[in-house]
């Protein structure tokens, strides 16, 4: 198969898989997730290069992957719809100390994740101390504490 088609197909497939898995798929990488990522990268490498180890094939593949990624970034800049569809949008998951359960369920985030982010980034101890918790586009949780907003 043509290396450009192969590169685009693998890029789109991996993109689609991580979009399906959601924002949190890479936000908290455990040791096992890291090993899994290495296995995935090894598997996709084999599919990308097949048995063609030539320099030309390598250059074509790198340019294809970078090119598709660049094209995606341009489309995201131009179209809000495409940006939200591909990367999602920030989502408030705690409002004035109250967890928004349905939003958290849909985003596969639980209160433990929010409190972990609150402890790590703001040194907070209780949910009531949080004014807003926002699930960002990259899957991280940002915390706005109550006292700082005043």
């Amino acid at each position, binding site marked *: 198969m043509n290396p450009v088609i192969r590169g685009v197909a693998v890029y789109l497939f991996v993109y689609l898989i991580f*979009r*399906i898995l959601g924002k949190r798929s890479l936000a908290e990488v455990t040791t096992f997730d890291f090993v899994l990522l290495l296995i995935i990268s090894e598997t996709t490498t084999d599919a990308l290069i097949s048995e063609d180890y030539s320099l030309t094939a390598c250059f074509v593949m790198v340019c294809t992957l970078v090119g598709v990624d660049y094209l995606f970034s341009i489309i995201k800049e131009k179209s809000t719809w495409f940006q939200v*569809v591909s990367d999602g*949008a920030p989502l*408030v998951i705690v409002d004035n100390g109250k967890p*928004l359960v*349905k939003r958290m369920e*849909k985003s596969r985030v639980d209160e433990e994740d929010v409190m972990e982010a609150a402890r790590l980034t703001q040194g907070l101890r209780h949910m009531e101390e949080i004014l807003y918790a*926002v699930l960002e586009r990259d899957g991280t949780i940002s915390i706005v504490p109550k006292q700082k907003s005043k």
Partner: protein
Amino acid sequence: MSKKKLTVEVIEADLDIKEHLKMQESGWNFQRVGLYCILIFVLTAAVGLYGNGVSSKKTMTQGNTRIEFQQFFRQEAKMQLKISTDSHEKAIISFPTHYLNHFEIDAIVPEPSDSYFENGEIRYAFNGDDAMMITFYLVPQKVGKIRGSLRVNEDSFKIYHLIFP
């Protein structure tokens, strides 16, 4: 015009962010459908819809000859075509050239004693005085349907494959 109801809490946060809740809802629906698709893909792969499984393996018997091949397989992956025959002298296996053009022959075990072209066919001859088991290791080069025929001495078989990229 019907307005789709949101299934999550609607709040008014004092934050400079655009939540695009409707699009987020579509995204969550897409994720759910996507997860089912992954599940279906894995299950169909497990039963061999893309090769190496029960739904892919096909066996045909005619006379003293039995062949086993993969109906579904993948491009550039090595598949086996097994032929067992009870002819007690010489076995001649013939493939039409147009069929073998779609494959790279990686190996033939055991090696044929002779191979030649005749009447638009490629023929492989094997000597033996007992039941023979011959395996062709074929690597599909084409994506899509491949139809062909295979003849072992007088026994003829119609074979077909569906090759995935």
